[in-house]
């Protein structure tokens, strides 16, 4: 059931430089995964695949220590079990990097003989993942994983690895990752990546951290319990019956008695709202009925009638005892108000005004746009999470790598950023190129000339990324001749043929863009050394229109 790729976490636009990788040729992502599994039996950690080059690189090393670069059209797949920070069952498959015992003592390297001579070594147990000094469970110990310790007086001790929520759930099941796929009333769940019978916006690709796999029950939106859309057309969604874990929930971070960030960790006793209303007790359903009860949210400290933020609101709040005011925010003193103000004041006033377009390749863009073309939020340049990188202020001191603003430090074609989506390393930003259009009044004679206006398939120029380009240019930007799309010589390829992509206009050897590449049409080349290259297709001139593209930039205002 399912795909071999289900065991991997996908990151688009990422490439690893690793001398220990093995290179193959593969026709698909799945084939590359199979290579990784068979050729590197038990040690396959990750693989890289590029669909255009059909290059498959498999890795048996821990990718956490590898340097990752950004590269268009490359996809990195990392094996899920090597990324899990929790244990399933006894933790025999735990391959995380915890290297301390529950008492905080450093673990001994499995391959060395001091201070303790180990019975379990990488040589004797090659499939047990005994690498470095990470906690493991080679002997299926019911209390595992464990490790030999660096303390000469303690030969071994267990590690404090949290349980993955597979069989049961803690809290409200936000981290439930099990495979129950039926609801409380026995309805079968709809697959998250399907829009039938119910259309919805919980798209797995938009919510990668929510693990919306197959049709398994999940809690991506702060419900009291995991749920799913049902396959019954008359029932949109329903809760699932996931048992509560009997083990204690993961230890929460210590609470605060002041406001830091959005106050999700506020555990103080203020119980009055900003307008002076008294808070309703969380366990009470009067005067307001609600689902934010202590039973539904056992890990959110919904005690008494204290202000809390159990649902990622912008600050702590409560239901009020005023019948006409359902809920209100509370005024909680800031943990460090002066510091927050200083940060805000540090940003020059000019910088807070977003530039809405970039000139040239955008290397001079100094605006505050911070979202990518697909709507993902940018990662701050000085952050290494979720993506490690070397585009730092030290490396690029003149590139104005401030906050998480879109920039072009490396002479790319336009501003970009690393994204906060752990599965998409980087993307171009949602910015348009500045255009200076001369405004003229329409002439009456234009009205008769309607044939000029709508051209669905321009022949010699392209709109946008040229996905609809159907012209006859058959040379790359560097002058190489294009290979015929139906030919397998000199470059064999199973993707992007007239048969696999009948609507992409893959005729003869004309430049096309069957994969919607941001940089425009491309082709396989007749040069055996160069698998593919971009073509240089001119942009269509103004006078013809593209739907949805205004000639005058909108403000895109969203302030209240």
């Amino acid at each position: 059931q399912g795909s071999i790729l289900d065991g991997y976490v996908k990151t688009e636009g990422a490439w690893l430089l690793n001398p220990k990788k093995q290179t193959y040729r593969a026709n698909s992502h799945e084939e590359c995964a199979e290579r990784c599994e068979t050729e590197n039996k038990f040690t396959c950690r990750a693989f890289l695949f590029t669909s255009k080059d059909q290059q498959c690189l498999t890795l048996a090393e821990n990718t956490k220590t590898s340097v990752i670069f950004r590269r268009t059209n490359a996809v990195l797949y990392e094996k899920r079990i090597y990324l899990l920070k929790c244990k399933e069952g006894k933790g025999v498959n735990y391959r995380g990097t915890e290297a301390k015992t529950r008492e905080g003592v450093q673990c001994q390297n499995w391959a060395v003989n001091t201070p303790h001579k180990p019975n379990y070594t990488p040589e004797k147990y090659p499939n047990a993942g005994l690498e470095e000094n990470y906690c493991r469970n080679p002997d299926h110990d019911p209390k595992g994983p464990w490790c030999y310790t660096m303390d000469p007086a303690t030969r071994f001790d267990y590690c404090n690895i949290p349980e993955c929520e597979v069989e049961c759930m803690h809290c409200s099941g936000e981290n439930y990752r099990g495979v129950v796929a039926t609801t409380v009333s026995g309805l079968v769940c709809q697959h998250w990546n399907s829009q039938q019978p119910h259309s919805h916006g919980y798209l797995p690709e938009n919510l990668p951290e929510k693990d919306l796999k197959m049709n398994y029950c999940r809690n991506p939106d702060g419900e009291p319990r995991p749920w799913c859309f049902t396959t019954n057309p008359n029932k949109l969604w329903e809760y699932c019956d996931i048992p509560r874990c009997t083990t204690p929930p993961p230890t929460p971070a210590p609470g605060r008695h002041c406001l830091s960030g959005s106050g999700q960790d506020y555990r103080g006793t203020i119980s009055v709202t900003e307008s002076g209303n008294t808070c309703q007790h969380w366990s009470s359903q009067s005067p307001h009925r609600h689902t934010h009860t202590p039973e539904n949210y056992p890990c959110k400290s919904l005690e008494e009638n204290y202000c809390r933020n159990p649902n990622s609101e912008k600050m702590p709040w409560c239901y009020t005892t005023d019948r006409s005011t359902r809920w209100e925010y509370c005024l909680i003193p800031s943990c460090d108000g002066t510091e927050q103000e200083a940060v805000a004041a540090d940003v020059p006033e000019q910088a807070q005004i977003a530039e809405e377009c970039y000139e040239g390749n955008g290397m001079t863009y100094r605006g505050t746009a911070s979202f990518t073309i697909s709507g993902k939020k940018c990662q701050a340049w000085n952050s290494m999470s979720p993506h490690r990188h070397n585009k730092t202020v030290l490396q690029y001191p003149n590139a104005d790598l401030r906050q998480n603003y879109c920039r072009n430090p490396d002479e790319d074609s336009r501003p970009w950023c690393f994204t906060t989506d752990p599965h998409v390393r980087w993307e171009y930003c949602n910015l348009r190129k500045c255009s200076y259009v001369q405004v003229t009044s329409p002439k009456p004679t234009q009205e008769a000339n309607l044939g000029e206006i709508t051209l669905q398939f321009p022949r010699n120029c392209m709109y946008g990324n040229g996905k609809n380009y159907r012209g006859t240019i058959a040379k790359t930007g560097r002058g190489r001749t294009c290979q015929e799309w139906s030919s397998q010589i000199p470059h064999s390829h199973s993707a992007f043929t007239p048969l696999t992509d009948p609507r992409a206009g893959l005729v003869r050897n004309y430049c096309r863009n069957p994969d919607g590449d941001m940089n425009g049409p491309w082709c396989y080349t007749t040069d055996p050394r160069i698998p593919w290259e971009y073509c240089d297709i001119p942009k269509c001139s103004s006078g013809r229109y593209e739907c949805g593209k205004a000639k005058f930039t909108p403000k895109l205002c969203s302030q209240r």
Partner: protein
Amino acid sequence: IVAGCISHPHSWPWQISLRTSYRMHFCGGTLIDPWWVLTAAHCLERSSWPSAYKVYLGLHNESASEASVQTRDVEKLFKEPHRADIALLKLRRPAIINNHVIPVCLPKENDVLGGKKVCYVTGWGETRGTGGDGVLKETGFPVIENKICNRPEFLNGRVKKHELCAGNIHGGTDSCQGDSGGPLVCMHEEKFVQHGVTSWGLGCAQPMKPGVYVRVSHYIPWIKRIMENN
């Protein structure tokens, strides 16, 4: 539009003003093709005669006589046959496409929006004292998943499958009376795609009461069929 801001002139070149034959604005609409305008069916309740309506294109200031404006008579009205709040107007003469008048893109059939995607609405409707009366205003807010929007504290089950909700949870900005029929557009691959037709709401800009828009992607087959057959 309540709150939001006054738009840059002609930055929403698909926005039309639907007017009575006496030139009074009462609804919005969207140019989707030189011959066709998409609007709300409830905007056509005042008359079933096409001659009762006029379409103003390329307009920014409602009352000024701008050189960019094109006016068109309506040749035919088409209301969605199952009483959804969406309708098509065929113009008597096609709009001239220029820098001020450009059709919007339509979504693919049954295309869904990912949660929290920020989209924009525009119109000359009521501002409820927030300024900008008479000029085209815009505002942006996220789309809210129907499952959330139908919770008791939001719209309590009123939102149908063929509709979508959008707004800020705290209210403050919204579309309002007079914006009906206009577009809710979202950026996709550097283009604006119309995902909603402004339809209804409980008040305007109230907390927990987002605006409701007809989900255009549900009606693509109908739109195509009407346009091809007419």
